[in-house]
């Protein structure tokens, strides 16, 4: 493990100044960064601990939404009464991730920035374009049972591991960040660039920028929203496929839908095609299936993960059916 310095500033400006060095990284809960440092995947020269910054907690936003401070722990975000009331799928998504101990440490800001769990990314002896650009992708011909079926490129087929971001993107979340130039915001839907030829570029965040908060618009509040995650054991595993959804049905007709998918791509995906196909359609399982197919027609499964197409389709239908017919 490479030597590094450690600082814990009390103010955001101070943190930004400390992080201006190339080798600096912000440290939140450390649940991902520290593991990667131990294995020599991340090699920062300076850690700037953000947990002393005044960025903790959940508060009301003027538009009826919520502001979730970047250093709020995953556990606190999931347990917050207003998160649970207005955006229950977000609370469910956070609780579907990791373990109680990890959620107590991990922060909301850090969750947005976690790295892929592709085994080749974490193995320095093997090629990986994300870790070592130009070295090649080991997963395409290798073990890729739980890799991407949508949006991947020949350079990388890894998936984004976060559950939380799947729910956030369904609720039109906005990421707020600060640089030495001032404060900025970017919709989460634009936060993660497509893989393309640069899998090493994982977010649009400028170098040295600090995420300060995530906001959820009041208009997206969906007290009847749902997150479902399928994985290979009942707890403590990354998603094969996950779905965050909310459904507005009036007299059997879909007025609007919010659907986001996890486990399928290098980023959480908003299922715009499925949402469009549902608007004005009868809230029936058949139409839910048509909507799912509209979204998944672009899927390009790898040798060993074609099951994800079926699983995603079935899971979308199951979650929408549950939302449309809560009694069943």
């Amino acid at each position, binding site marked *: *493990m490479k030597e590094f310095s450690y600082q814990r500033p009390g103010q955001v400006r101070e943190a930004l100044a400390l992080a201006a060095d190339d080798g600096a990284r912000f440290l939140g809960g450390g649940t991902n960064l520290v593991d990667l440092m131990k294995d020599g995947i991340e090699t920062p020269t300076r850690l700037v601990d953000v947990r002393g910054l005044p960025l903790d907690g959940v508060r009301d936003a003027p538009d009826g939404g919520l502001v979730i401070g970047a250093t709020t722990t995953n556990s606190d975000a999931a347990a917050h009464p207003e998160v649970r009331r207005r955006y229950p799928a977000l609370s469910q998504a956070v609780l579907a991730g990791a373990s109680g101990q990890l959620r107590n440490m991990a922060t909301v800001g850090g969750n947005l920035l976690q790295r892929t769990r592709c085994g080749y990314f974490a193995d320095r002896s093997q090629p990986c374009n994300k870790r070592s650009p130009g070295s090649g992708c080991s997963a395409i*011909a290798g073990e890729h049972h739980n890799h991407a079926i949508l949006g991947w490129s020949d350079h990388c087929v890894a998936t984004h591991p976060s559950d939380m971001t799947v729910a956030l993107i369904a609720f039109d979340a906005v990421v707020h960040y600060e640089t030495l130039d001032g404060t900025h915001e970017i919709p989460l839907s634009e936060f993660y660039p497509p893989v393309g030829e640069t899998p090493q570029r994982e977010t649009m965040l400028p170098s040295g920028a600090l995420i300060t908060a995530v906001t959820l618009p009041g208009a997206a509040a969906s007290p009847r929203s749902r997150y479902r995650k399928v*994985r*290979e054991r009942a707890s*403590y595993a990354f998603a*094969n496929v996950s779905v965050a959804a909310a459904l507005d049905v009036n007299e059997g007709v879909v007025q609007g839908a919010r659907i986001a998918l996890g486990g399928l791509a290098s980023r959480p995906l908003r299922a715009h095609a499925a949402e469009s196909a549902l608007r004005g359609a009868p809230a029936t399982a058949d139409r839910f299936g048509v909507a799912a197919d509209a979204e998944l027609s672009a899927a390009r499964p790898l040798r060993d993960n074609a099951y994800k197409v079926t*699983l995603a389709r079935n899971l979308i239908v199951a979650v929408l059916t549950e939302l449309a017919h809560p009694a069943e």
Partner: protein
Amino acid sequence: MAASSTSPSPATAGHHAPRPNTAGTTAPSARMSEPPLGAIGMARPRVEGTAKVTGAVRYAADEPMSELAHGWVVTSTVTRGRIRDIDTSATLAMPGVLGVLDHSNAPRLNLDAGSFFGPDGGMHLLQNDEIPHSGRPIALVVAETAEQARSAAMALRVTYDKEPYDVDFSLEHPAARPATAFFGEDATVGDVEMEMAASTVVVDERYVTPEAHGAAMEPHSATVWWEDERLQVIDSNQGPFLVAMTVATLFRLDPKQVRVRSPHVGGGFGSKSGGCGPQLVLAVMAATMFNRAVRVTLTRSQVFQTVSMRPATDQRVRIGADAYGRLRAIDHTAAFEVSNLADYLENCTELSNTLYAAQAIRTRRTAVPVDILPPYSVRGPGATPGSFALESAMDEVAERLRMDPLELRLRNEPRVGPVSGLPFSRRNLVTCLREGARRFGWATRDCQPRTRSDGHLLVGTGMAATSFSAGALPSTASITAEAGGDFTVAIGASDIGTGARTALTAVAAEALRVDPERIRLLIADSDLGPAWSAGGSRGTTSWSWAITGAAAKLRSQPAGATLPLTVSFDTTESLGALPPMERHSYSAVFCEVAVDPATGEVRVRRLLGTFAVGRVINPLLARSQLVGGMIMGLSMALHEEGVRDPATGRHVNGDFADYHIAAHADIPDIEADFVPDYEPGDPSGIKGVGEIGTVGTAAAIANAVWHATGRRHRTLPIRPDRVLEEPPPQ
């Protein structure tokens, strides 16, 4: 009855154990002349329980040592080939580094050293430039601190000449060969083909199980130093005496020169039973080379790469039955992986030789050498994957006969060993089946699959019967009657978390007719004399026999002897005098599952096991062990799988995030209970409980998944992608 058959004796039918001398004539001793005191049968919490939950006990890596150096293991990143060069220059220049051990400078080992199966190249580390499998330890970086060693190890520059590898195991592999007959010959009873032809139904299917890892919570660690010409070892293992003997052979030392202690061990599951772990081989080398105390602790990833696993198996089972459900023939061919470095037997056909009566039984065991780390015993070796195949096939016979699978088992009870012709010492399978069925509420089950649902979930139930070979292996105990009225009981036993300390204290108290408070038990030290390991479900039986023998000897001393007085007892002769019989524990496992066909998620809702395991020393601890075994069986059925990279042959899921063992959320209410049982061939009437909890569980779950969905799962684990159903066409 059998022209060519296995001959079950305490050692043969089960587990990776040496055969006892069967030529002895001395009768088992320690016959009780007074009523037992009652220490056996009492539910007592484990004696070290408080110390464990408060963190006070020391595991192998916890022992404080002065002047301790640390070794960091470097493993091969290629699957097969040769080391072209190891450039140590950057590593040696790093702070705190004492040196690097590799094949150019490591002490030469005795290449005859190995396990019961013969020389084991898995132990012969750093002897040449060959890379026989991925993850092979190729160097040890030794430094003043573990952090320095790790950091310096990352700077080591290793280059390889890669060679083609083969990890593509299957029953049809061209290199397949008959497996070692270490536990007896394959069975050939009756005319299998004639009986198959005469059968009303014939099941002929393939069953596949993946590589599986012991996955003990405590990673392997060894601390080694020389002290007055003696090698002192603190190591995480399942049997310090056998480990000490292996170290002595490997390093050509006088056995008296080696002392191995393993005071507390955080789980073994077979992974600490294979003679001498890589952590210990390398620590002995480094302690010798640098004349320092050296500790080598494996990381979780290194445990997966360098410590033996259960081999993958590929089994063909054919069963023919008449219309009444009587078996006419069982034909079980079982292939398993072995390494090119060592022989091994995954004895998958063990249960097919003994569980059911049939006119004809044929078993064939096939070893397939591939470029992998030598496999070894893990959680009910042989019996566990074998039971999955046999008990799944039995369920398929019941399905084709439209018969209750419980009734099918009841109709095939043998009177003597179906292959051996030997009598059963005590066979209580029927009691287990009937009692388990009663408790579970089996009688109302509809044998038709896919008939029960709960909302969108499909619900089904399944069962399996099983046995596990019982017996004891040679061990020596000594007991000292102290002047103050206490007794010091010494035996080289190992408590790997099962409660051996507590159980053996009770055994000694009863044998000596004293209160357990009066017993001072010494274990986990090779200096205490020859003793079998915590393995093969034979730890407690082997050690208890020695303790009861010593106690009887002490009690037969003339009154008024001068104290302290020490006697010892070696069980070798008594074991040799046991008449050959079929000796097994038995169980029946019942379960209920709920399956979501849309997502492929399988959840076990209920799991119930009834067990005939002889006399139960401590029901609290024994039940805990059996429940733990059933959890391992559940984990095998639904989760566990060592995955190899199709592009490189390397093991790719070597951590607890990716190698899935059942999480708490996967575990339902589990019931495990005992039926009255007694083993007449054991002085205390006991059988082992270590592994039988695991053995039948995977088949019971797979059978329940079939009952829920109508689909058979003959490949484990039963992952969501294998269960998931396509939506019906619109």
